[in-house]
Every structure is written in structure tokens, then in C-alpha cells.
């Protein structure tokens, strides 16, 4: 891989929340123009990883490079310039609840450009058309279903024509039709706009269909990585458990607890 292929690189990243370590020596690269999936069991820090990439959080040690720049060195204006080139889809859409669908999508344009009202209208309707919701422009967020809200948020994420789109658990809580729509949009937008996409998900089936490359994160490190077909043949027990959705394995079914006999009977029988 040449340097120009790499859009994002995490180098020896350590991060803890309080006393609980989340990442230890995490190394990971995201290639330009591809859909990269970040997978892993719940609570492994997938969303935290996105927050490190966007500098909503800073690592305890190690570096995060975006387009070759160490983002820890960015001042606030450089950071905001970087974020203008990124679009992020939050788990619940995170639409601004006091604005209509149209105004939500227009929000970044009004904040960062001096486009006229007519042009803003056209751009917003085009983006809504791309996610199939041009007809919902006049609705309020409270009138949308979960899947629709996420599509509106997606239209808002692409309205500034970002170079990188980040999806945080885009399939959670959606019905199969909405899941299929979102998966199709992820692939379509990536290819049509020529951008780079990062998708955090634990939905192995859906993500397997759209991702070019996948990382499985577990125990604070990259447990496995590769093309979807490679991951399915991964020998690691943990990766197999995750990919096949097995209830028990290296990720135990039971949370750590005192000895069962001791807890129920009071003392261990001889």
C-alpha cells in the first residue's frame, strides 16, 4: 500500500475511559475510495474509535493521521476545516429537532456557505432525492420513522460533498427493508461520489455485502482484518464466534460473577 492510498492511519493508539482501557497499541489504516467496516462485539469501543478519528476524543498516546496530517496538532479552525470535509451519520440520526427535514439538510450550507436561497433549495432537494426523501422535505423529525430519520441524516451528511463519510451503527433498530436501503445507499454514495466510507457495525451480514475491507476489533486491538471472504475463513476462535454469531466462546456468555454454588448455597460443598 502506498502512502497516497491511505486516508486515515491510527498509529500505536492507547485510550482509556477512567481506569478502563479501551485501546492498547491500536494500529489501523483506512484506504481512500473504499468502504471499510469496523466490526466487533458490543462495548469494544467502535464508536470511540470514530470519535478518535474525528478528534471528538484525543488518544492518551499514539497518533491519528488524516490525509497525512497528525490531527492532534490542529488548532480549532483547522479541526473545523477538517470536519467540513467529513460527514457523519450518528446512530439515531441526531437531527436537530426544532428544524424541518429541509432545514436540517440545509443547516451546514447556511452555516458554511454564502449560497443564495434558490441554490440552497436545489442542493437540498437533490440530496434528499438521493436518499429517496424529496417528498418528506416539509416534515419535522418527530414525524419520521427511524429509517427515514437516518436517511435524512445521511442527506445532511453528504450535503457539503465530503471526502469521507462515517456511519456509526447505521443498521441498528431498522427493519429489513430499511437495512437494505441503507446498505444500498452506503455503496452507491461511495462509488458515485468517489468518497471514502467508514462503517461501524456489528451487523455481519449487511456489512459483509457492502464493505471492501473489514477490521474486527476486540480486547482493545485489531483481532482480524481483511476482505469479507478472508474474514469468513479466519482461524481465530474469537473472530469465528463473532462472524457466525455464536452465543458462547472467547467472548463469554456469562458476565464475570462469583462462584454459582457459593452464591446460591452459601458455601461450596466438599
Amino acid at each position, binding site marked *: 500500500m502506498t502512502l497516497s492510498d491511505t486516508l486515515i492511519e491510527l498509529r500505536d493508539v492507547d485510550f482509556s475511559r477512567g481506569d478502563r482501557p479501551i485501546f492498547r497499541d491500536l494500529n489501523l489504516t483506512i484506504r481512500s475510495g473504499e468502504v471499510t467496516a469496523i466490526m466487533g462485539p458490543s462495548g469494544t469501543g467502535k464508536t470511540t474509535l470514530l470519535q478518535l478519528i*474525528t478528534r*471528538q476524543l484525543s488518544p492518551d498516546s499514539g497518533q491519528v493521521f488524516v490525509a497525512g496530517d497528525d490531527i492532534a496538532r490542529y488548532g480549532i479552525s483547522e479541526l*473545523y*476545516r477538517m*470536519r*467540513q470535509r*467529513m*460527514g*457523519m451519520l*450518528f*446512530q*439515531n440520526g*441526531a*437531527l*436537530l*429537532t426544532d428544524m424541518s427535514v429541509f432545514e436540517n439538510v440545509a*443547516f*451546514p450550507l447556511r*452555516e*458554511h456557505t454564502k449560497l443564495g436561497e434558490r441554490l440552497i433549495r436545489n442542493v437540498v432537494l437533490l440530496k434528499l432525492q438521493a436518499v429517496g426523501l424529496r417528498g418528506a422535505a416539509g416534515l419535522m423529525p418527530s414525524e419520521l420513522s427511524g429509517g427515514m430519520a437516518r436517511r435524512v*441524516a445521511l442527506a*445532511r451528511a453528504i450535503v457539503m460533498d465530503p471526502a469521507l463519510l462515517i456511519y456509526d451503527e447505521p443498521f441498528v433498530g431498522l427493519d429489513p427493508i430499511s437495512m437494505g436501503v441503507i446498505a444500498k445507499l452506503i455503496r452507491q454514495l461511495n462509488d458515485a461520489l468517489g468518497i471514502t466510507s467508514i462503517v461501524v457495525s456489528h451487523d455481519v451480514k449487511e456489512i459483509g455485502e457492502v464493505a471492501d475491507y473489514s477490521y474486527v476489533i476486540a480486547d482493545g486491538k485489531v483481532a482480524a482484518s481483511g476482505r469479507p471472504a478472508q474474514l469468513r475463513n479466519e482461524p481465530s476462535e474469537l473472530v469465528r464466534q463473532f462472524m457466525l454469531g455464536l452465543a458462547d466462546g472467547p467472548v463469554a456468555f456469562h458476565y464475570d460473577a462469583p462462584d454459582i454454588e457459593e452464591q446460591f448455597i452459601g458455601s461450596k460443598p466438599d
Partner: protein
Amino acid sequence: MFHDIWKTFLGFLQGFGAMSLFFLRLLQYTPAVLVTRFRLVFYQVYNAGALSIVIIMVCGLFVGGVLGLQAYSNLERFNAEDTTGIFAGFALIKEIGPVITALLFAGRAGTALASEIGLMKATDQLSAMEMMAVDPLRYVAVPRFLGGVISVPLLTAIFTTIGLLGSHLVAVELLGVDVGAYWQQLQNALDMEDVMEGIYKSITFGIIASLLAVWEGYNSVPTAEGVGRATTRTVVITAIAVLIFDFMITAWIL
């Protein structure tokens, strides 16, 4: 025990320091927000101020009425019922108007501000703004803070005016105090300094109530319980802070 008290004290100092820095950042962004986002500030004056007018007027009327009643019944014993206007007017303009308006504002608008900002945080709206390269401090916090700071003195003026009217209704219309004496005595006794005392207090209380509401919402734990707790804290801490500052300002002026 001593260790716990020390830890609590340190925690309080830490929180106070963080809130002071937050306040300075709000002040730092204020000029730019007033120029570039005046529409948002104007909306918040409506949201926090105009929507509180009814409750302020109703409370003002009855507080004024009860002051007129108390003043009359006590002053009558000394044949001094003509000075009812002075008693009710001084109490309203210097103390009760600013304090009760601030407490009502905290209950009506402060809780709404804290819970609104807390819910925006819990539903990732603030993070989404940050990711859209829009500083939520400028877009969400400063306009709401300024809306409150502008609203409270105006609401205090309304409360005090309606309070004087309520006191007039009870003392003059119901109990028969001479209308000329009621207003003339008040006009003669009242200096501009007394009015300014009320204005200083209402401005200070406006800053305190708005700052605490925005701070509590902005720093709430992003869960249902956290937002609920932030809302409660807004009312409780504002009430305590307003009463402490009321004493301090009065002691300083007298």
C-alpha cells in the same frame, strides 16, 4: 469524615472553576453572536421571556395584592395607612420584584433551557453540530444565555409594575386608602437609587439564572436520569444563588 468534607469542598471548587471558565467563554463569544446570530438571540428572548409573561403577571398581581394587604393591616394600627404605597413599592422595586421574578424564571424558563440542552446532548445533536463544524457553544449556549440575560430585567419590570397595580387594587380600591396619598407618598419617598438597586439586582439575577440553566444543561449526564437531575439542580442552585447574591448586593449598596 474530614476527608469526605475536604473532597466535597474540592469538588465544589473544581465545579465552580469550570463554570467560571464556561461563563468567560460565553462572554467571549457574545459580541460575535449578537452580530451574526441575532435572530437566534431574538428567538430566545421570545422563548424564555415572552412565554413567561403570563405567569409573571399573575404572580405579580397577587404578590402585590398580598403586600398591599399586609402593609395596610399593619400600618393602620399606627394611623399610617396612607404610606401603604411606600411599603409595597419599596418592597417590590428593591427586593421582591427582582427575587421572585428570578425564581419564577428559573422554574419556568431555566428548567426548559436546561432540559432542552440536556436532551440535545443526550440525542447527539450537540455532537452532530460539532461534526458539522458548528460550535454548539455559539449556536446553542450563547443565544439561550443572552435570551435569559435580556429577558429577566424586562420580566422584573413587568412583575414590579403589575405588583404595584395589585397593591393599588387592594389598598386603594378595596381598603379605601386615598389614591393621591398612595402614589404621592411613594413618589416622594422613592429615589432613583432605589430603582437602580432593583435594576442592578435584576441584571445580576438574569446572568445567574441563565448561566446556571445553560451550564447545567450543557454538562448534564446524557441520560434520562441525568437530564432530570440537571433540571432539578437548575432550580435549586439558582434559588440559593439568587438569595445569596440578593443579600450581598443589598449589603453592598446600603
